[in-house]
């Protein structure tokens, strides 16, 4: 593989950048600083240095700014949140770039805690600005990143279920994954749970606070892990940079379990995924069912060489954001589209019909339609059906149907 392969864990507070060749991880605050007097942008230590000197203005909470369409006025110029994120990513990617010696990016996987279409679109827009071809950029959830990190480890780590606590500023999350070996293919299911018992990491700075935090985590661990069997329990997030403050919690989780700490786990998982994209044949031959992946297969009834069949448009385990397809069909028989939604549980399989309402009436097989299928989230399919007519014989109209289907 030629070029840099990078995995990024992009959060509102910190960003972890993991790189392969040179194998290194950078952890920088998700802030960007703009020089008041010239068009220069800084990240990491430089950003704080310029702010302290007084010639720079620092901007934080970049992801929130993008999602809420926030703006910042620096040196009399108004910058949109997206622009700030763009400049941050540009400067952040220069860190591995400089070390590798100005090589192009061959693969970039960005892991984010929440898969929001707006954020994902914005990240791809940033990739365009950075002149990284879109096919080299992928966005995954923290859950998926967790799966890839675990599955890249030795088999004994994932032979049973794997649990993980992620303790960051003002957020405490629990992840769990399980490998199911099927006859045809292995399936990995993973879930995330946002825990209510959150606290600010500042409390760890004094002994009393740390003790309370330890108690909170212990009770969480007891409630969640119970006496279940885990092949491994992982700890990640800034809160676990040190575990000295949580002796009770550590005792609890270490009892008959292997425990590992990896603070840049999401970036490492994203890097594993990015490296896998570089291979012709995947090193992870499993169906991944988790946040960001479809939980049902969507197919369409078609006629193929005189025989009825199903055309799979998106399969369970596909990345919903990337599962877009555009196909042309000629309609025969009743003017409607019949989708089959097949979740993992075969009993929940169902048919969804979309009638071609208000489409012009034409002889059979003289209506060509273009079906564009996409997903606005992992549970919502969006079908756009456009009338393409039948050449000059039956000219196309402007008729179009847009329908959302809950999977």
């Amino acid at each position: 593989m030629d070029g840099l392969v990078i995995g990024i864990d992009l959060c509102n507070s910190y960003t972890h950048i993991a790189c392969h060749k040179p194998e290194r991880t950078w952890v920088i605050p998700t802030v960007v600083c703009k020089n008041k007097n010239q068009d220069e942008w800084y990240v990491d230590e430089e950003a704080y240095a310029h702010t302290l000197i007084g010639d720079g203005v620092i901007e934080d909470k970049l992801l929130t700014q993008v999602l809420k369409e926030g703006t910042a006025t620096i040196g009399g110029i108004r910058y949109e949140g997206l622009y700030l994120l763009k400049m941050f990513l540009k400067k952040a990617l220069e860190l591995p770039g400089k070390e590798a010696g100005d090589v192009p990016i061959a693969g970039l996987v960005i892991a984010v805690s929440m898969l929001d279409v707006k954020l994902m679109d914005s990240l791809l827009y940033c990739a365009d600005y950075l002149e990284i071809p879109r096919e080299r950029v992928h966005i995954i959830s923290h859950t998926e990143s967790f799966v890839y990190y675990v599955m890249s480890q030795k088999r004994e780590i994932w032979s049973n279920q794997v649990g993980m606590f992620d303790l960051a500023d003002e957020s405490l999350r629990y992840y769990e994954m399980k490998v199911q070996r099927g006859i045809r293919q292995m399936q990995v299911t993973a879930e995330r749970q946002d825990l209510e018992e959150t606290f600010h990491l500042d409390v760890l700075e004094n002994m009393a606070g740390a003790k309370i935090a330890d108690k909170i985590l212990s009770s969480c661990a007891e409630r969640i892990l119970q006496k279940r069997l885990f092949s491994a329990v992982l700890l990640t997030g800034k809160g676990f940079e040190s575990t000295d403050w949580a002796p009770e919690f550590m005792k609890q989780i270490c009892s008959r379990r292997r425990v590992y700490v990896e603070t840049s786990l999401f970036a490492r998982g994203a890097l594993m995924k990015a490296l896998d994209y570089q291979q012709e044949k995947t090193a992870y031959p499993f169906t991944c069912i988790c946040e960001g992946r479809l939980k049902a297969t969507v197919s369409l009834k078609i006629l193929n060489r005189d025989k009825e069949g199903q055309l799979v448009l998106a399969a369970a385990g596909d990345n919903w954001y990337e599962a877009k397809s555009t196909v042309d069909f000629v309609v025969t028989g009743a003017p409607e589209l019949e989708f089959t939604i097949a979740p993992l549980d075969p009993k929940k399989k169902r048919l969804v019909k979309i009638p071609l309402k208000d489409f012009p009436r034409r002889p059979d097989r003289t209506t060509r339609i273009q079906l564009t299928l996409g997903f606005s989230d992992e549970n919502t399919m969006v079908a756009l059906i456009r009338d393409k007519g039948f050449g000059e014989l039956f000219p196309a109209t402007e008729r179009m149907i847009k329908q959302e289907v809950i999977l």
Partner: protein
Amino acid sequence: MSLILCRHEPVKHPYFIERLGVHIMSSQELCYILYNHPLLAMDGFIDQALIQFIEEELDMPFLAGKLSAWKKGGEDPDEMIFIILQECYYYTSREVIKLRQKIGSYRKMNEAEFAKETADYYFRLKQYGAAIQCYEKILDSWRIKSLSDEFTAKIWHNIGASYAGIFWFGKALAAFDMAYNFDKKPETLKKIYQLTLLNPQLKLKERYQSAITERQQRQWELDLERVLADAGRGEAVREIRELFNQDPLKRTAGAEKLVTEWKRAYRKML
């Protein structure tokens, strides 16, 4: 209900079918034409230009090769229609068999019947020039003597209708005149009379003047007036009225487009 998956066909130069005045840009459209216009398909439609279109534009070199080999071998040209239909899977096997039977029945017709069928087909397409040629060929044929009066009258009648379609009222009158000689139907007489109304320069022959009663004249005049009034209320006239209500720039552009369209349609009829 079902959907037929369309293969990607990167057509950059659509194929023009002169007889129909349309361009086709997919294998589905080609199949539709073959299936719905068998007489056109049987009339040397699958030529080298179409085979080239199939190969280069539809990106179906295998099918094109098969057709070329068939053509070169001098085999039954009708079979090429089925080769295309079977390769494209646009019609079911049952429908292809049905078409095979239809084409077979055409081929079983005697020469005059088949020629009339072809001529009628061009007439339905409003290709009046081509239709007239076909009808006249039937009348010129050495088999003329074997044609029944009824059949001959129908041919002359259709020639008359074709000439009327291209506004050659004089020739239309002469053709209806011939038709009347064979069928003596008042319907034919009605058309002759109405042609003289449409073109006052045409004179009704004396023999018809005595054959048409005053009552018939009044009725046929009323019928024609009704038809003309209906036409005046038609969509085409409404569009022209709307066009002339627009500002001069749009009006001129619209009129130019309309006249070009009329010219194209008229040339196609010839």
